[in-house]
Structure formats: C-alpha cells, structure tokens
C-alpha cells in the first residue's frame, strides 16, 4: 500500500513538474537539436538563448508594466526530427503553458513548429530558420530574425562578379528546403548578373561520400563553387574538395563555415567563405540590448569560443521578444505581436524589421548579410568579413590559392 501511494505521488509529481512555474515567470518554450545531424548548428543557438535568459534574470527580469518577470526557458531535444518537433511544441503550449515560443534550429523543423504555434495562437520568434516560404502561408504570429534564404548567396555572387565576371559557377547544394531556396535565389541572382552557371546539382543531406559530385564538378570545368547546406554535409564536402584537389578559385558554402568547429578542418578550411547573418566585428549601434563587442566578450567568457551568427541569432531572438513585451507592457499575444509588427530597430545583431503584408507577414526585411572568409593571420585560421566592401575587415582572397 505504502509502495503504491509512493508510486502515485511520484507519478503525479512527474506529471505536474514541467508545469510548475512561479507566478512571476515568463515561460518561453522551444526544442533544440541536442542530438541528430543538426546538433553542431543548434548548440550555439541554444547557448545564445541561455545567455540572454541569464542576462535578463541577473538584471531582475523583463519589465511588464510595473512588474518584473523572470524568464524561464522550457526546452526539449527534438533529435533533429520534425515528428518530435510536432509533438513537443504541442506539449510546450498545452502542458508547459509556454507564454511565447522560440523556433527550433533549421528551416525544416521551424516550418513544422510554425503549424503548432499558429494553431494555438502563440507568438514564435524564429531564429536559425531562413527559408522564406513559411512566411507566405498567412501566419500571424511568426517573426523571422534571419535574412531569408534566397538572399544568402547573393553577396558571394556579387564578389565573384567583381573579381572574375567570366567565372564558371557550380551550384551544389543539399536537398533540403532552406538550401534549395538559397540555391534557387543564387541561380536567379547569377542570371541577373550575367554569370555563367555550368552545374546545378542537389545532394542528399546525409551524404558522406562526395567524390562522385566532386568528379562531376571537375568534369564541368567549374572554377567557383557556391552552395552547401548545413554543418555535417558542408564540412564533409570541404574536406573532400581539399583531398581531391578540386582547384577552385572560390568556395562559398552555406552555414557550415560559420560554425567555429569548421576550423578543425585545417588547411581544407582556408579560403572557404560563408554568407553570414552576423560577425563579431560588426559595428552596429544598438537601440536596445548589448553592443556587438559586449555580446562577443560575454559569450567568449562564458563558452570559451568566438560566437558565430547562430549564437548571435539566439541572443537576438531573446532581446527582440523582450523589447516587444516591454513595449507592449503586457504578456498578451496580440499586443506583443502588434509591437513586433511595428518594430524597426537596430540591435547588436543588425537592423530588424518584419514584413507586415498579408502574403509575407513576419518575413525579415530589415536585416542584411555579409560574406566572411577563412583567412590566415600569423599562421592561424581566422574569419574575416570580405564583402560588402564597406563592411570589410580584410580584402577577399580571390583566387583561394593566391
């Protein structure tokens, strides 16, 4: 009998536990890829969320009217799988009573989460999710922090056009929503610029052997590679390009080269460029929140690595939501959404403005991207902003072998 009672109490306790939050907490729910193929990309984003929460709580919390609320993050591992995202976001809203939501990492998972957030009428600030399509579906509570995918590779092509208008370009990209949208945008932009695209091929996101693709690249006679996907495939592709001496003048890949772990590839990483949402040496003067230096220093101190844009995006999602709540002076979804709709501000992460049209509500239209390249300084690999010219911290290395 005692055993049964104890079991019942334990069971009841376990069920009730996630719902416990003190009266003065704002609960923000999300999933993150603690495991699965998106783990390397999702981890810094998670660090960004956590650092924001701690900064807010150390300063007493978010001010809503006259009351200060502490931030409580409730999160689960989505294993990089969308079926988990679907279950867990429903759980976050119904069982964990999340007031607001952040997105998971990646466009694919976010598209799934957006269905749930919209169904339950919760504001979701998305980060690490650039694909624009989700914002054309009439969602009312979805707000994007990242520059949309179709603009990702534009700066790389602009740089190619300026350095070598006769370049032969190969578009090689992962067969997922975000990368395909980025590649489609790149193909359109190349056409506008009058650049010559000699190869256009998608590969499976789980590809580990790129030799067939690289052989085709060599056969096509291309000398510039633009494309990629996420960390796992992008870093593999980079390594094999180096092993197979693909001899390219420029390599610009999505996402992977911006993850600090990319530098572990050593010589293979040299010269590889990445469209970046944000770089630590950016010089924005924020209307609210930390300066880029303050953010970078705090992040370095806490995690012992230089933050990339995934981390910055996580933190930025936090301060954007915080600012909207404070401006609204309320936790009411519609009031906060109205503030987000109005937002036109600069943060450490850059300019933020959301589209408010019916066919593109929530799409990020204020934020600009830069192109960063792995270069060597005193024999050590270091990322430099190389494009656009006005944001340059070092000139673009073109061709790479130079």
């Amino acid at each position, binding site marked *: 009998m005692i055993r049964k009672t104890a079991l019942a109490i334990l069971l009841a306790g376990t069920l009730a536990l996630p719902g416990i939050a003190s009266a003065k907490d704002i609960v923000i729910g999300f999933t993150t890829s603690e495991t699965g193929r998106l783990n390397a990309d999702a981890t810094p984003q998670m660090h960004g969320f956590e650092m924001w929460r701690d900064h807010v709580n150390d300063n007493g919390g978010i001010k809503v009217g006259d009351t200060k609320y502490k931030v409580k993050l409730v999160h689960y591992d989505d294993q990089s799988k969308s079926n988990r995202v679907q279950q867990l976001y429903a759980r976050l809203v119904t069982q964990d009573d999340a007031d607001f939501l952040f997105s998971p990492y990646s466009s694919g998972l976010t598209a799934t989460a957006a269905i749930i957030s919209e169904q339950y009428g919760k504001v979701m600030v998305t980060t690490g999710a650039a694909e624009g399509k989700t914002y054309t579906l009439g969602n009312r509570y979805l707000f994007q922090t990242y520059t949309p995918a179709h603009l990702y590779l534009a700066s790389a092509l602009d740089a190619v056009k300026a350095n070598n208008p006769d370049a032969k370009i190969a578009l090689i990209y992962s067969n997922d929503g975000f990368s395909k949208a980025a590649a489609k945008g790149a193909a359109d932009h190349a056409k506008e610029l009058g650049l010559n695209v000699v190869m256009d091929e998608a590969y499976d996101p789980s590809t580990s052997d790129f030799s*067939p693709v690289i*052989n085709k690249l060599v056969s096509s006679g291309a000398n510039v590679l633009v494309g990629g996907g996420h960390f796992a495939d992008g870093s593999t592709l980079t390594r094999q390009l180096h*092993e197979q001496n693909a001899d390219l003048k420029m390599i610009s890949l999505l996402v992977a080269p911006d993850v600090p772990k990319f530098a572990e590839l050593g010589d293979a990483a040299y010269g590889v460029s990445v469209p970046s949402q944000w770089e630590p040496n950016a010089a924005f003067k924020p209307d609210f929140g930390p300066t880029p230096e303050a953010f970078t220093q705090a992040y370095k101190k806490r995690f012992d690595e230089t933050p990339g844009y995934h981390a910055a995006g996580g933190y930025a999602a936090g301060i954007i939501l915080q600012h909207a709540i404070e401006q609204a002076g309320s936790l009411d979804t519609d009031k906060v959404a109205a503030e987000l709709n109005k937002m036109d501000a600069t943060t450490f992460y850059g300019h933020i403005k959301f589209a408010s049209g019916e066919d593109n509500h929530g799409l990020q239209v204020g934020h600009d991207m830069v192109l960063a390249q792995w270069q060597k300084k005193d024999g050590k690999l270091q990322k430099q902003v190389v494009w656009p010219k006005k944001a340059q911290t070092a000139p673009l290395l073109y061709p790479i072998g130079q």
Partner: protein
Amino acid sequence: MLGVLVSVINGLLVGAIYGLAAIGLTLIFGVMNVINLAHGAMIALGMFALYFITTGIGLSPYLALPVVFAGGFIVGVVVFWVAVHRVIGRAELMSLLATFAVSMMVVGLGTAAWSTSPYNVQVHLPGLTLGRYTIPGNHIVAAVAAVAIAALLYGFLYYSRLGKAIRAVASNRQAAELMGIPSAKVLAIAFGIGIAIAAVAGALIATLFPFTILSGANYELKSFVVTVLGGLGNPAGALLGGLLLGLIEGSVTPFVSGSWTPVIEFTLFVLILIAFPRGLFRVGRGR
C-alpha cells in the same frame, strides 16, 4: 570519359570497404543464423575507437587498425555472452531484438558521450592524379587494406584449425560437438571476429569521411544489400557484392543527379534478386 573512369575507380574503392563491413555481418549470420542489428553500432564504435587512438596516443590510423580489431573482438565476445548466446537457436525474432537492443544502448550511450556532431580523423596521404582528377590516397589505402583483411579472414577460415572449427560449427553444430569441438566457445569467437571486422571497417571508413555515432546506420543498410547480393553467409561473396555495389554507384553517378543514385541502385538490386534469389556469388556449397 576520364571522369567516368575515375568515378568507377572511386566506386570500386569504396565498394571494397562496403564489402569488408558486410563480411562482419555475413560471417555472424553464416555461422549462427543471427542477423546482427548491432552491426551499424559496432561500425560506429570502430570509427570512434580509431579517433580516440589516433588523437589520444597519436598513433598512425593504419597502425591503429590491429588495436581496433582486438578491441572489437573483446566487445564482440562480451556482447555474445551477454546478449546473443542464450537466444541462438530460438526464434529468429529473439536474436533480432537482442542485437537491436544492443544497438540502441550503444547509440544512446554514444550520443550522450560524444553528441552527434561530426568527428574527423585527419589522414594526409598524396593522391593519385589522373588528368584534372585526383583519387585521394586514403581511399586507395583503405580499399587495399579492406581486401587484405578479407583475404586474411578467408585464409584463417579455410586453413587454420580454429577457422575449420568455426566452419564445422556453422555446417552442423551437433556433429561438431560430437567431434569434440566446444561449440559455444567457437560461436563466441566467431561472433567476436564478426564484430572485430565491422569495427575495422568502421575505422577504415573513419579515415575517409567525417562520422558520428549515427553514421553506422548507413553502412549497416549497405551491408545488408551487399550481403544479399553476395549470398547470405558467404564472406567471399560479400566482398564481391561490395565491389559490385561500388561499381554500380560509380558508374551511375556521372550520368544522373545524386538523388537518383539510390533509386537506380535499389532498382538494380531488386532486379538482381528476381534473377538470382540466392545471391549472385553463391560459390561452393549452399546452406
């Protein structure tokens, strides 16, 4: 044209490693009729073993292979006594579930310990240059090593006393017992060798591509295909099956977009099964 040739060579090199990985699977099936669903997990463990030996002790990846083999053997024997021994000869579902459970445990613990971010083993070898194409040196060495290990295993099974005992138990466990062969011990050794081969194949793959604890799953699937192509329970057939799979991949990829390769590969696979239901390379006596 040269591009196609290089692609075919690449395919064959990777195919040799598919073949080696499949030998581990087919050996265990052939000897004790157990379909080892922990095969992929053991391949992944081999990858990590190589990573930790090379980064920890600084040993060259190729010199580390015997260590990985020995470690794989020990793990295999332990897994055999803990999870497999008691379900041999029972319904096939039992051994499927037992090995699947082992796989879940290994993958779960591995995920907790090493996350699922990719790991790299750095290998610097000069490649073979053909015109504008380069065949990476590590691919060549790994393929040669795979074939050599397969040949050693073949020699062991056919010319050593223990190898003959393994074949005897595979052929008829009761008769082997009557001849004084301790069949349970022999099965444990065979299982250990099967796992050791899977681990070494994993280690060789780790010299080519980045990997995570989940990477084994892909090669497990290929191993099943290769095993069926080569005829279940036939190590020599597995190696040939691997080469064939690599050849198909290598000769298809230059002509179609990457996402079509598996479609064509598996269509051919089904056609081959229709024409040769017992596998292509069923040499010698069938089961």
